[in-house]
């Protein structure tokens, strides 16, 4: 379960320093991931969690995925012992898929293999 900045509510991304640099650069460039789909396997519910990305940069989108999954979709809100990370991720964006997989240390599935 990601650490959350108590002042901003933004979760810390647990990725390599090279990935942090890539995310920071993309954020500064302002490229948006609006409309991309991300699907996380959700062991807690025995199903999947689907995300539709809003008007978000790479950093914003990643923190929105992690924040929403950790807090609202992976166990009992506020009880870290109940947290269950996803087993895999699939996405219409290779960047989002690879960085979410890095954060959760999970595998990447091709969207064609997903039966939501």
């Amino acid at each position, binding site marked *: 379960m990601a650490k959350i900045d108590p002042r901003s509510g933004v979760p810390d991304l647990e990725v390599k320093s090279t990935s942090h640099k890539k995310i920071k650069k993309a954020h500064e460039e302002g490229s*948006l991931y609006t409309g991309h789909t991300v699907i996380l396997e959700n062991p807690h519910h025995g199903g999947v969690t689907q995300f539709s990305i809003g*008007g978000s940069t790479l950093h914003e989108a990643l923190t929105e995925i992690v924040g929403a999954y950790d807090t609202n979709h992976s166990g009992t809100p506020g009880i870290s012992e109940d947290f269950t990370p996803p087993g895999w991720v699939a996405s219409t964006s290779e960047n989002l898929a690879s960085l979410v997989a890095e954060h959760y240390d999970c595998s990447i599935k091709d969207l064609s293999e997903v039966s939501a």
Partner: protein
Amino acid sequence: MTRVATGRDIQSDALLRFSTGYRGTSTTAPTATTFTTDGVNIPVNSVVGSSVVTGSVFGIIQSNVSAVNSILTIDRWYDVSALAANANVAAVPAPAAGVWTILPGNIPGAYMGLTAAATAALDGDTVLAGELNATGAAGLNRQLATYAHTSAATATSLTKTFTAAAADTLPVTVAQMGIFQGVVVAASRMIFRTVLNATGTLSAVGDQIQITHTTTL
């Protein structure tokens, strides 16, 4: 969280009202905020919240009059395959007259706005008083939030990480948020108005705040 009166209307229409739609071919050129149905009479305000689609663009209907040529007032034109990321994204140009369709059901609400105002939310609220709406390179204006839902679960969340930018007036302490059906601050209808469980202060460009709105179905 206050689900305002308009929000109840939107939820009802979106979930349970599978009404017949309308279609036709217009000859009157649409404007930035109006569409004339030309020969199709639609009962007054019966399609509010639905979308009028022509070509690859749509508008969210805010009101409609009943007449031989019903006139629809929309909030703006949206590209169906490239939704506006935030309030400062220019509207899609008005389409040419031609074949149009009004689909049944209401457009979902996933736009999130912020305000520093701390006034209590009321059932009859239609706007988020004092909504942050700086023009130009602003990061705290109304934004399309990231939607998440787990299959068969009860919770649906809208999450947005806002990043303060050069055009925002800083510092600002965010106290409330609203969820809207569209991106137009002066027009798009509000569904929820919520006093945050904790305020958040953004002091400098690059500061961030993440806000999540959770709805239990």
